[in-house]
């Protein structure tokens, strides 16, 4: 019985959301507000149960890890925004978080993107075959794409043509990525329609 009610609710809400494809309407509004409200509440509880309690309260109370009072302080001063007189205090936390993100981003980018990508472009060119042609295409594509992202000079002459070829490579890559992702989205749609026809309407077995 419980499962049946659940399926009806899920099917109803699915149709409410899909009704947006026609136009904004009260059914969509209901489903939207329900979804937003439930997820906001869920994340509040999630943050308490999986972040504040196990990573802050329990270590301080049970393990006496008083060093955690420092991040807790930065967290609490974020709430000073409710009090205009001391609202400026929240900027400390923001500054710390943004600075930390930017700093970590530099080493993360070097290690995760720049060096591996440069290394991956150093590819052998042996013999006159299709693989060599393919590798040459990769090297040429990377070089011209980098030219496209060169901002300090006006795109004239070699830079202009390099940049045009670069953006062509980018667009070809986007086209391939677009098709690939659309395929994945279609499979999500099929999954939803299958749920409606199978679990709900029992048309499909």
């Amino acid at each position, binding site marked *: 019985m419980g499962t049946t009610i659940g399926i009806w609710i899920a099917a109803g809400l699915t149709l409410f959301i899909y009704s947006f494809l026609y136009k904004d309407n009260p059914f969509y509004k209901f489903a939207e507000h329900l979804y937003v409200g439930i997820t906001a509440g869920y994340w509040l509880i999630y943050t308490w149960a999986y972040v504040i309690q196990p990573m802050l309260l329990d270590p301080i109370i049970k393990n006496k890890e008083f060093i955690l009072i420092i991040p807790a302080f930065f967290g609490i001063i974020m709430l000073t925004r409710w009090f205009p007189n001391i609202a400026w205090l929240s900027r400390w936390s923001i500054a710390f978080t943004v600075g930390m993100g930017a700093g970590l981003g530099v080493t993360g980018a070097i290690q995760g993107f*720049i060096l591996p990508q440069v290394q991956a472009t150093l590819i052998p060119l042996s013999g006159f075959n299709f693989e060599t042609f393919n590798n040459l295409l990769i090297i040429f594509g990377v070089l011209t794409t980098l030219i496209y992202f060169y*901002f300090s000079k*006006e795109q004239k002459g070699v830079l202009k043509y390099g940049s045009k070829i670069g953006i062509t490579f980018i667009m070809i*890559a986007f086209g391939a990525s*677009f098709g690939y992702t659309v395929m994945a989205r279609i499979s999500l749609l099929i999954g939803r329609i299958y749920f409606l026809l199978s679990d709900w309407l029992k048309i499909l077995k």
Partner: protein
Amino acid sequence: MKKIFFFILSISLFILIFSQEKPILTFLGEDTPDSIVKNFTIDASDIPNDGGGGIELKWDSPEILKDWFISIIRIDEDGKRVLLTTDIPILSKQVRDVNSEEEPDRVIDSKGYNYWGILSKKFITEELLQILLDTFDFKEGLYSFNDDTFFVLSKTQMVYSKASWFNFLRLAVLISLIIISLTFLYYLNLAKKGKDLYIRKINGLDAVEEAVGRSTEMGKPIMYILGIGYVTDIPTIAGLTILGRVAKKVAEYETKILVPSYDPVVMTTAQEVVKEAFTEAGRPDLYNKNDIMYITQDQFGYAAGVDGMMMREKPGAIFLQGLFFAESLILAETGHSIGAIQISGTTETAQLPFFVAACDYTLIGEEMMAASVYLQKEPMMLGSIAAEDFLKVIIMSILVLGFLLSFLGSGLKIEFFKNLFDILYQALQV
């Protein structure tokens, strides 16, 4: 009758259980018919370049032992035994004793450990394993158990794990970081000294003013969506910088900006940015912090909420600048359906095609970072763009050098250049 039956059943079961012979572990001697097994040794050492808490065990695997298995038991200096691994093929050649922080039996730095290896042709039974872990008096040699034989190797030397001060495997990262830092310092210094630095026109950014102006004329608000990134994500930081420029234009045109946020910290930061921009434009009175609101931290909940807001508020211009994932097309398509001018930008390559398809202008990857500089044209920020471009030239030079070395080494088979290519390739390894 029942009682007699149960009595007989109990007696039968008792006899059945105790009449079964217990398998006996028998020491067959130190010698083994196979000299290769006898000479098999495990080398244990601290894992270099790590943060401690890890020991590496290596061995040579002769072809003749390819069908054998190895099980390894760790014994610490207090005599505590822990099973490291059981029945892995000898051909695997190595195993690492690295446990997670939560693991109670994890390897602890500065504590001594010995390892005993057990070679067998068959999988070790649970029963034997229990004996090895509980009561077995480890001694090198050949043993039999349940008609199976196995060989206990000599124990490894006592080994200690320790944390390394420096990870030499990431030397390339340090060198790159130094080069990047020095380049930035050089160009920032140039900018400080007043050198005129140039930034080329970025397509789409001239449309910012047009988009804000059009919205104002139509009496519609502007919507600025920062995506589902956190304030520690670089695209979100870039999005916030562009927000500052857009908000300034909004204040100058005396219109309204809506910023629905996914993350509370991003929302707080966005409030600060918009407030500062309005103050800079001389219109702090127009700033309304409720226009920068929190929606939810659920990806599709956020998408549903923002879509609904688009349909009701009907913004004249929508900026999608930040970190976007699967919700990108849902947002961009809804914005397109209400006829808003859309200017998007993200570094997520998988989402950029959707923005290119559904938005009027798209800032691709680094263009987004350059956009904030283009809008502001502040000398220090221009310096950072010039530094980035110089670094791109270095990267292009490495690629061209790699291409030439590869052509000469692999294409024309000149060994010297092939070696140079390999050195260059290894130098970039992280």
